[in-house]
């Protein structure tokens, strides 16, 4: 039993891109958090907060120089990868940033839709974008504490579909900064049917049909429960027809939780009405037994009545 909550071991992943920057030790990523967060998957809750924006402007100018130097040498970053959820916005912003950047930088005092610092950040971000990033394999974040949080099982009859969804999952997890394993293949299940071809006789002419179920597992580590929630919900919202997903979640609870739940349940049973609940929880075997005993009583009573009548007569 884990005595500590996962949030004490890993920083709460409110702004997922700061988590990423910490692990990859790349200053240029800090400059892209503001731009990326607007397009990020898990930013619906944290996107409204301006704490990131307030901290960014002082570092943006310095990080822009380092960004230019390091952008070509370093691995393509995963930020821009999962564009499937918002197809129009990344493309639109990527194309618009080069146009808006030269206008904004020479005249920062002019009232523009974007503030000058945002425009600079957009430009730096756009310069580092690797187009077609989503086609390449996703970056897998390294585990910080190797604490397993979830298991994602995928099943499909069609391998290309399965691989596509796995690719999508890896990019989604990468964008959220969630460390996941590479997909592990479980043994393929094969169901075979041999049927006679014709509707009548001709036993020797038969045909084989099969149905293969391919299975893959991905393990999720070291993220905040909220982030894992978001990832799972995102995958559920963008599920692929022909691929089934099953999620096993592990929640960390403080020591003494077992005793507490038993007490809570006992209290509930006593308060609500134990008798009513007990009746509902009766299994069919118990119902049969009760009914049987009732029948015995009825039949015994009927038997005694009939014997009494005979004696009288």
């Amino acid at each position, binding site marked *: 039993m884990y005595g500590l909550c996962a949030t004490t071991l890993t920083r709460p992943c409110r702004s997922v891109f700061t988590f990423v920057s910490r692990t990859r030790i790349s200053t240029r990523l800090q400059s892209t958090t503001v731009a990326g967060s607007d397009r990020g998957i898990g930013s619906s809750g944290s996107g409204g907060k301006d704490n990131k924006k307030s901290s960014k402007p002082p570092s943006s100018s310095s990080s822009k120089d380092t960004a230019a130097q390091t952008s070509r040498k370093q691995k393509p970053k995963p930020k821009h990868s999962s564009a499937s959820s918002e197809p129009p916005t990344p493309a639109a912003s990527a194309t618009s940033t080069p146009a808006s950047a030269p206008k904004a930088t020479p005249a920062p005092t002019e009232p523009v839709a974007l503030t000058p610092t945002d425009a600079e950040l957009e430009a730096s971000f756009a310069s580092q974008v690797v187009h077609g990033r989503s086609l390449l394999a996703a970056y897998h974040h390294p585990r910080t504490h190797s604490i397993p949080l979830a298991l994602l099982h995928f099943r499909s009859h069609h391998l290309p579909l399965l691989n596509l969804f796995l690719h999508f999952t890896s990019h989604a997890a990468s964008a959220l900064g969630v460390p996941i394993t590479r997909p592990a293949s479980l043994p393929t299940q094969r169901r075979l049917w041999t049927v006679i*071809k014709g509707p009548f006789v001709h036993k020797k002419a038969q045909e*084989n*049909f099969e149905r*293969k179920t391919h299975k893959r597992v991905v393990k999720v580590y070291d993220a905040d429960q909220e982030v894992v929630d978001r990832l799972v919900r995102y995958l559920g919202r963008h599920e692929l027809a022909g691929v089934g997903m099953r999620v096993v979640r592990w929640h960390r609870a403080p020591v003494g939780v077992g005793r507490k739940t038993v007490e809570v349940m006992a209290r509930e049973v006593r308060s609500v009405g134990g008798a009513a609940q007990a009746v509902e929880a009766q299994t069919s075997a118990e119902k*049969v037994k009760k009914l049987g005993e009732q029948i015995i009583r009825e039949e015994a009573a009927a*038997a005694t009545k009939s014997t009494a009548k005979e004696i009288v007569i």
Partner: protein
Amino acid sequence: MPNIRVLRDIKARHGVNANEITRRAYLYVARNQTLPASVRYQAQLQLNTFGRYTRPTTVKNRCHESGRGRGIIGEFALSRYQFRMKALAGELPGVVKASW
């Protein structure tokens, strides 16, 4: 419109589901060695009054397309010929001609 035999089978399934517990209760009484013979006898007579659409032996897997009672593949509720026709047409998800 499905086959009349399929309809009868559906009726039997509904009847069995509705009366299963009552039947089992009477059976429990009728087969109980510790009870007096008269009670057991009465229970058995009561059991005989149940109609055929309450007996689980009446239930039989049938092909939903043709109503055939033999050569049924339970997973699809189809006879072997219907299964083959639908599989070749691609109407059964994941089912392909096997080759190895």
